[in-house]
C-alpha cells in the first residue's frame, strides 16, 4: 500500500500572517482536496482565507500544482506526488 505523499504548500506573502509567518508548509496529502482538509485541521486561520464556510475554494484564488493550474488538471481531485509544490495565489486583477 502506497504511503501518503508529502508535499509542500507555498504560502503567498499576504497569507503568512495566518500561519505564524511560514512561507512553506509540509503536508501529507494525496490530492489537493486532502491538502486543504489538512489545512482545515491544522492551520484553520490560513484555511479560512482559502475556503469559505461551505468548504468551497474562494472564487478568486488559483491553485497551482507545480506549474500547472489545477483547473487544467482534475481540480481539487488532482492527485499529488511526493515532492509536489502546491501554490495558492490570488487571481490577477486590475482596473
Amino acid at each position, binding site marked *: 500500500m502506497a504511503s501518503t505523499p508529502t508535499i509542500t504548500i507555498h504560502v503567498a506573502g499576504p497569507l503568512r500572517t495566518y500561519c505564524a509567518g511560514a512561507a512553506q508548509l509540509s503536508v501529507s496529502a494525496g490530492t489537493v482536496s486532502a491538502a486543504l482538509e489538512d489545512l482545515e485541521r491544522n492551520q484553520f486561520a490560513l484555511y479560512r482565507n482559502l475556503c469559505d*464556510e461551505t468548504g468551497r475554494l474562494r472564487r478568486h484564488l488559483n491553485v497551482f500544482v507545480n506549474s500547472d493550474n489545477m483547473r487544467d488538471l482534475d481540480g481539487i481531485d488532482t492527485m499529488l506526488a511526493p515532492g509536489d509544490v502546491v501554490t495558492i495565489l490570488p487571481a490577477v486583477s486590475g482596473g
Partner: protein
Amino acid sequence: MADRVILTIGTRKGVFVADAAKPRRSFALRGPFGPGVPVYSTLIDTRGTPRLYASSCNPFFGMKVLRSTDLGKSFKETKSAPAFPKEDGRALANIWSLEAGSGKKDLWCGVEPASLFKSHDGGDSWEMVPGISNHEHARKWQPGAGGLCMHTIIRDGNRVHLGISTGGHYLSEDGGDTFRASNGGVGAGFAPDPYPEFGQCVHKIARHDDAPDRLYMQNHGGWAEWTGPGGPRPDIGVLRSDDYGHSWRSIAKGLPSDFGFPILVHPHDADTVYVMPLDPATRSCPGSAPAVWRSENGGDSWSRLSRGLPKKQSYFTVQRDAMDIDRLMVPALYFGTTTGQLWIGREAGEQWDCLFDSLPPIHNVKVEVV
C-alpha cells in the same frame, strides 16, 4: 469633555480616518488602512475607551473585521469574522453593518447574505442570531443591486429594528430572539403586489432616542410611472412610522424624487430629518445638482440645502451608509460620494464644503465626538 470629531470613511480601497478639533475648521486624514479592499461598514464605539471598527471585504481571502484602539492611528484584524456554521450552506459575502450592543464589548453585525451576528468580546468571536438568520422568510429574500444585505440594525431596549435589502423591515420585541416582518404601508415597486408582507427594498432606517416610537425610512422609490400589474406606486420611497415600525406612511410629498439611499435624524430634534433625493435611473441628484433635503416638521414639508455644493454637471451617488451627522450643539452633516469626495454640511447643512476631493469611491461615513 469631548474634544475631537472623528470620522471613519469606508472606501473601495480601505478605511480612512479623519479628525478635527471641535470647531471642525480642518480635518487631518489618515489611511488607508487594511489591504486596499472595500470597506462597507464602520463603527466608532464610544463606550469606554473609544474603539474603531471596520469591515474589510476581501474578494480574494474573505471577510475580516478590523479594530483600532488608538483612535484610528492603526488597525488590526480581530481574531475572527462572522461565519455561517458549516452545515448552513451559506457563505459570508460581505459585512454591511456594525453596531454597538448592550454589553460593553457587545457588537452586532449585519451581513450578506442577510443575516445577523453578535459578538460579546469586541469582535474576536461571533455567533449567528438564529431568530432572523434562520427566519422562515430568509431563504425567500432576494438580492438587490448591492447584494442581499442586512444594512440597518437599530437597538431600542428590547426592540430591535433591522433593515434588509431586499427583505424589508423586521422587528423584534424580545431583544432579538424572534423577529417578524413589519412592513405595513411599505411599498415595493418590483413585484405585482405593491404592498407585500416582506421583500421590500428598504434602503435605510433612522430613529431618535427622544421619539422611540417614530422611525424614518428611505425605501426604494421611483415607481410613480409604473404601469404594470398593481398600478403606479408614487411616493413609496420616504416613509415614517409612529408606532415602532408596525405601520408606515409616506412623507415624500415635496421632494424632487422619492428615491435615495441615506436618511438621518438631527441629533437634538426628532422632527428634523435629512435625505438625499436621487434620480432613480442614474442614481445621481436631480438636474445633476446635488442637494440634501431637510424637513423640520417630521416630513410634512421639505427644504433644499445646497449652498456650496456643485450647481451642475455632478453625477455622483451617495450610498446608504455614506451620510452621517455629528452630535455637537450645532451639528454638521457629512457625506461621501461614489466619486471620492467627502463633504461637510456646516450649520446643520446650511453651508457645504468639500473636505477631501480625491478619495476612492466612498461606501461609508460615520462620525462621533470623542
